[in-house]
C-alpha cells in the first residue's frame, strides 16, 4: 500500500522485545535525557501517500473508494488491540460518524468515518488477528473500505506534514 516515504523513527536501537540494544552504555545518563532518548526512539511512522484525520485515522483514496485504518501513532497509544468491531456492510456514514470500535487491552476507542460513503468491505482478517492493527497499521491492519458519495478527496483531511505536527504537539 505505497512506500514509506517519511520515517520519523527507525527502531534500529531496539531488539524484538522493544528493549534498547546495548543499553548498558546509557546506565549513567540522567533520567530526563534517558526519557527523551526513549521518546525519540519510539516516535511513530507516517506515510506521505495517505491523508489523515485529526482523530488518528488514515485514508487512502483510489477510484472513489476510501480505505481506512488507524495510524501507527494511534495503535501505539492504544496498546495491544484485542477486538475490532467493524461496521456493517451497506451501511451509510457521514464524516465524523462513529463507524467502528477498537478494543485494546487498555480501553475501547471509537473510530470516526473520515469521509461520507457506504461500507463496501471490512477487513475480515482482523476477526482472528486483531493484532494486525498493531503490527501493520498501514497495511494488513486496514479496517474498512467506503464507496465515497463524493469521489473528490475531502479538503478537511490532514496532509502527512500536518498530521506529523499534530502528533508532535500531542506528545507535549
Amino acid at each position, binding site marked *: 500500500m505505497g512506500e514509506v516515504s517519511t520515517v520519523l523513527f527507525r527502531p534500529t536501537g531496539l531488539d524484538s522485545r522493544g528493549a534498547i540494544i546495548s543499553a548498558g552504555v546509557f546506565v549513567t545518563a540522567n533520567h530526563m535525557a534517558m526519557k527523551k532518548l*526513549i521518546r525519540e526512539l519510539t516516535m511513530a511512522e507516517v506515510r506521505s501517500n495517505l491523508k489523515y484525520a485529526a482523530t488518528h485515522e488514515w485514508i487512502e483514496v483510489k477510484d472513489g473508494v476510501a480505505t481506512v485504518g488507524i495510524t501507527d501513532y494511534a495503535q501505539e497509544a492504544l496498546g495491544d488491540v484485542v477486538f475490532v468491531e467493524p461496521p456493517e456492510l451497506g451501511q451509510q456514514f457521514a464524516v465524523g460518524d462513529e463507524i467502528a470500535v477498537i478494543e485494546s487491552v487498555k480501553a475501547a476507542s471509537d473510530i470516526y468515518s473520515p469521509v461520507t460513503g457506504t461500507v463496501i468491505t471490512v477487513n475480515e482478517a482482523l476477526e482472528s488477528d486483531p493484532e494486525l492493527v498493531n503490527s501493520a497499521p498501514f497495511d494488513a491492519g486496514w479496517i474498512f473500505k467506503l464507496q465515497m458519495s463524493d469521489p473528490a478527496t475531502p479538503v478537511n483531511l490532514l496532509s502527512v506534514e500536518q498530521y506529523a505536527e499534530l502528533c508532535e504537539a500531542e506528545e507535549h
Partner: protein
Amino acid sequence: MTRKTSLHSLHLLAGAKMVDFGGWDMPIHYGSQLQEHNTVRQSVGMFDVSHMMVLDISGPEAEAFLRYSLANDVGLLRDSGKAMYSAMLNEAGGIIDDVIVYANRPDFIMVVNCSRRAVDLAWLAQLVAGFDCQIKERADLSIIALQGPKALQTFNAAATEQQSRAVAALKSYQGCYSEDWYLARTGYTGERGLEIILPHQAAVELWQRLLKLQVSAIGLGARDTLRLEAGMNLWGNEMDESITPLEANMSRTVVWDDHEFVGRAALIEQADQGIDRQLIGIIMQVKGVLRAHYPVYEESNCVGEITSGAFSPTLQRGIGMARILPSSGPLSVEIRGKKVPVDQVKLPFVRNGRGVYSLV
C-alpha cells in the same frame, strides 16, 4: 513526589511505558502487554512488585496480634514459613486491605498493597497498642516476582547453590529465609513461581542476571490480566471498606472459630441475615471485551456491575468479575448500549496455563 523502586532506571532503559500506580512510577508494559501475559502462562516472566509494602511483625505477641487483626487465622499456619492470604477488616466487616502473611515464628512478615500503605500503617498502629509486638516497615527491601511454568528452573540458573536448595525444600505457598533474602512460593498469576523479598542492591543484581538469562520483564498491565484469569481479587475493584469478605467471594478466607478478630461480630450478623450481593465470575459467549463498571442485567433488571473486566489472552474471550444481587436467570452485560449475553462461571478461569472454569 512520585516514588521509584530500586529497578526504576532498568525499566526506563528497557523502554517501559511508565504510569503512576498508587504514587509509584511503575512499568505498565515493556512493549506488548499481550505478549507479556502469554510469556508468563507459557514460560517465565519477572515482575517488579517493590511498590508493595513489607512489614516485619515481631515480638512475643506477634501471633496474638495478627490473630486479632486478620479475618483468617494465622494460628492455623503449622509449617515454618507457611503463607496465608487474609482480609484485614474494620469493625463493620469492611475490607481495609487484603494481605499475605508468612509465619516465621515468633515473627511474621506481612505484605500489603501499596495503595493502602498509609491507611494500613495508621490502622495497625492503633490496633497494636496493648500487644507486646512491634511493626516495622521494611523500606530497605525490594520484591521481585518470578512467575510461570519455568520459574523455578530459571531461578536456579540465577541463584546461588544455597538459594536453590532453599527453594527446592519449599512447598507451594511457603517461604523461608536464605541469609537476607526471603524466598516464597507465592504469586498473583495462577502459575508456579516465586516472590523474592531482598535488599535493593541485590534486587538490581538479580534483575540484571535474569535479563542476561533472557527472562522477560512483565508490566502491571499483564499482572492485572493474569490475576483476573486466576480469579484473584484486587483491592479497589473487588474489595473496599464498604465490602465484606462474604460479598467478595472470600468466605473461605474467614475463620470464625477459635479466634476473636476485628469485624467478626459484623460478619456473623451478616451471615445470619444472608448476603444481598455476591461476587461472581462471568465470561462472554462471543468475542469482545468486558470492562469494569459495565452494568450487568438479569432479563431487564440491572442486578449489579462488573468490578474487573478484560480480554482473556488465554481464553480469547472477554472475562470479568461482577458484584450482583442474588439472581438465577441468564445474565447479560451492557456494552455500548447493547445487551450481550454472558455465562456465570466458577472461578478461577485459568490455572497453570489452561482454562479450568466451569459454567454455573
